[in-house]
């Protein structure tokens, strides 16, 4: 269970030189300052992330890359309000997030962020339509009358309109992941997190999913992709490499892959 430790939210003034962190007023979408995360088990501290300083602007397509155990999933969970950090600061649109209670975090998850998981996580024995509609049930401000229209549009965006009434178990892996993408879109969140979205898919389906994500990015969405494969990470504009809980590199200088074009076409 998430515990909100009182040690987080340490003022940068006390531990970090001023010169590096004097641009808080610019209100980046995501900004972390000396963020760290440890897990505590039976009083034993297991540090996972150290001194993460990161800024992500609205409209970016960022890959967080690293081998397993590098802390990339933990970072995604913290940035996606599924988990809390231990020390340092995490500013979301300029607002500190350290003191949010469980309900406030749930509200942010309902309205501002969404997720695409490696294992799809669709509800079994439930239609495509109802799966996509699910987040709207928990959205505090989208009216009941708008639900169907929004759901239809999201399904249309991923090209599965003709599968709306299918049960999730009747779909292929690639189709399932596109349903998950539609579900992530339906609340029109500020950020879409994709955690190894192609990990359970064959190459063809993987390409289709990356195409969908790149299309979303072109239409203005902010996407944070977590992956351990460079070939997948290269679909983003920017690659942040994590190693052993620290940022090893943060680069925009690489050959970007556009999904479905010649440089990726399969034999």
């Amino acid at each position, binding site marked *: *269970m*998430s515990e909100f430790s009182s040690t987080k939210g340490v003022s940068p003034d006390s531990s970090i030189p001023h010169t590096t962190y004097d641009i808080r007023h610019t209100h980046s979408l995501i900004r972390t300052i000396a963020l760290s995360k440890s897990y505590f088990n039976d009083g034993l501290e297991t540090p996972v992330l150290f001194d993460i300083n990161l800024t992500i602007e609205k409209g970016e397509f960022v890959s967080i890359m690293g081998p397993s155990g590098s802390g990339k999933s933990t970072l995604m*969970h913290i940035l*996606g309000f*599924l*988990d809390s950090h231990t020390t340092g600061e995490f500013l979301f649109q300029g607002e500190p997030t350290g003191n949010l209670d*469980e*309900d406030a975090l*749930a*509200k942010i*998850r*309902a*309205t501002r962020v*969404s*997720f695409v*998981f490696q*294992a799809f*996580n669709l*509800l*079994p*024995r*439930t239609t495509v339509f109802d799966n996509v509609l*699910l*987040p709207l*049930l*928990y*959205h505090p401000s989208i009216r*009941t009358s708008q639900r169907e229209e929004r759901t239809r549009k999201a399904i249309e965006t991923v090209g599965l309109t003709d599968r709306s009434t299918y049960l999730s178990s009747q779909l292929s892996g690639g189709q399932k992941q596109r349903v998950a993408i539609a*579900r992530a879109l339906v*609340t029109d969140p500020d950020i879409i997190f994709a955690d190894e979205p192609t990990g359970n898919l064959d190459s063809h389906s993987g390409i289709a999913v990356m195409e969908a994500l790149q299309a979303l990015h072109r239409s203005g969405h902010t996407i944070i992709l977590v992956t351990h494969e460079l070939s997948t990470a290269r679909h983003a504009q920017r690659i942040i490499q994590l190693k052993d809980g620290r940022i090893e590199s943060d680069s925009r200088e690489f050959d970007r892959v556009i999904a479905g074009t010649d440089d990726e076409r399969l034999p």
Partner: protein
Amino acid sequence: MYFRDTLQSAFKGVSANALRSLLTMLGIIIGVGSVVLMSAVGASMQRVILGQISSLGAKSMVIFPGQQQGGPNSVSTGHDSLTFDDVDRLKLLSTITTVAPVVFIQGRTSEGSQDESPRVFGVPPEFFENQKIVSQEGRLLDAQDQQGATFNAVIAPDARDKLFGSVDPLGKRIKIANNHYTVVGVTRALGSQFFQNVDDRIYVPLSVARTVTGQKYANYITMQSTSLASDVAIDDVTFLLRRLHGINNPANDPKKDNFVVRSSAQANQILGGVSLGLTLFITTVAAISLLVGGIGIMNIMLVSVTERTREIGLRKAVGAKRRDILLQFLLESLLLTFLGGCIGLLFGIGLAFIAAAIVTKLLSTYHFVVSVPSTISALLMAGVTGLVFGISPARRAAALSPIEALRYE
């Protein structure tokens, strides 16, 4: 999240695994069903007995000979303690009226080739008044029959059917234990009183019965109290009979007496005690079966929470609050108990209806009554069961961390 949406999610949760849900509900179905069935049968029996008591009238009283044995509700007969001297002295009491002793005549009764053994009662005319017996055809026995010791008989409808079939019995002769009697009347059907069929009797004058049997005692005595306060009449009768029988019993020990006095009011009280016992019994059965049903529901809900850990994680990841999950799983338990309760209710009413139909065939008097208070309380108890046993699994589901729930394999 709107309540309607939560309810819909809960309904989907229950219907997604219909067979398992049904099996889970079985405890509740049986619990509620048995309560409804038993309380319906109990209420119907009570209605029947009350009807029989009130058909005799609230002032009706009976004295049986012999000692009270076993429980307070059992009476041993066959003793000769009630003499006709007692009867004459009883008639002098101001608190009672219409004292009517009964003498049984043993032996075969026949009409032509028909040979039956109805019970033959030697009774004075007051007996008919005490038992609310009226004539259907002909007349009842009167004071002239009694005084003249005429060999006349009045027969009840079942006895008439057995002896005469569809032939008109009036004026016909029947033979009872070597004597011939003329049928002067047929009584109206009364059904059963205290589960004894009173329609297969034959009545002859008491004077005749005393003569042919030579019996010096009454088999029992019927009478009525002059006021509704039958306790006073019971005390008077008891006091008188103890004095006449030479019984010294200041402690009111029923084992020392050689007679038992009963009144309709007393029977009412006994019935009250019986129905209280029945209510307690039903409540115990309900509590036990609902407890078992509740444990079954908790068990399945815990399995369900474990099975659906990833679903819970997903719901939390897309914004479900703790109370949304809590409410969804609580509503699932409530829905299981509520549906189980409703199915049990229908089963119980159906079985009670069948039971009523069977008893009506056997006893020819039975009312079909569903006890509304028992039914409502059974449903309420089922609901409380759902709430009590659903809260723990629901809290467990609500407390899951989204990340751990999503990672759950």
